[in-house]
């Protein structure tokens, strides 16, 4: 994020704050994206698991992992637990999605402002 090769354009404190915000939000977005991908993957696993449990034998206990150990649960208990974990994840994913949208909107706004002022003297694209 180097500024102004032709030093004609003065960088004001306001510009500096915008550049800082851009850099901070960019890092935040990456961070959120990683979390989002992780949670997405987790919910895919849980969905697969739910499918498997549909086919499971009702009389056979399910070894369900809680913390670090596997506990024998009845099929119904296992499905209940699975559902509440899925609900928790869905909620977290929604929250992450909202945060990401918010950050992306802010980034787009800052990009417009900064490119408007510095034209080609600034590069805000990812490598």
């Amino acid at each position, binding site marked *: *994020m*180097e*500024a*102004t*090769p032709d*030093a004609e354009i003065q*960088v*004001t*404190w306001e510009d*500096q704050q915008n*550049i*800082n*915000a851009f*850099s*901070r939000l960019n*890092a*935040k977005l990456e961070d959120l994206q990683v979390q989002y991908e992780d949670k997405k993957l987790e919910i895919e696993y849980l969905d697969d698991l739910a499918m498997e449990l549909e086919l499971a034998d009702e009389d056979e*206990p399910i*070894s369900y992992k*809680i*913390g*670090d*150990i*596997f*506990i*024998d649960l*009845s099929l*119904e*208990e296992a499905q209940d637990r699975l559902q509440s974990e899925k609900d928790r994840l869905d909620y977290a994913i929604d929250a992450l999605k909202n945060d990401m949208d918010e950050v992306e909107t802010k980034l787009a706004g800052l990009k417009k402002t900064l490119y408007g002022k510095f034209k080609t003297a600034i590069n805000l694209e990812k490598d």
Partner: protein
Amino acid sequence: MDNNPRGIPKAPFIDDVEAYVSKNESVEVSLKKFSETLSKYRFMENNMLQRRKTLESKIPEIEKTLAMVDFLIAKQVISEVGFEGLGLKFYHIVYTLQDSDEPIRTRFELHDTCYARADIETTDRVYLWLGANVMLEYPLDDAKTLLQEKLEKAQTSLNHSKEDAEFLREQITTMEVNTARFYNWDVKKRQETRVANEEDAA
């Protein structure tokens, strides 16, 4: 100079390079100072990321333990429900009644990839590992409260280190921009001097 809540100093923004240089040190000295400040900030940022990683691995650990304690509490409620004979409606929310007297059947990890079978009697107490080779017995509810407090503290501290990392990021950016502007200003200045000298010579 302003600090952030954890006492990290704010990077100075140079409004006018020309004025700064004429009032303070030469460009070379300023640039050197900037690069020192920059590496201090980078060092702090690294520490902060380290700290964050530690917390990010600690939090799931606490959550796992909490999930287990919650599970044991749920099992415990069943026996209470059975004992006090609460209404049928209630008993469906917590797990099935017949489980209450039966031990909890588990497979627990002896070592990586090696599991053993263990039956756990319904219990109202757990032992929590506190660190420093100390383990303490807690009633389930107390264990839950303790773990929740620890979780909350870890999360607050994670949020703080995230804030600090963001703050540091901003200060680093400011210093980078300062450096670039000084450098560019210097190049321009030199060019002007050279042109002026050539004109003089001509």
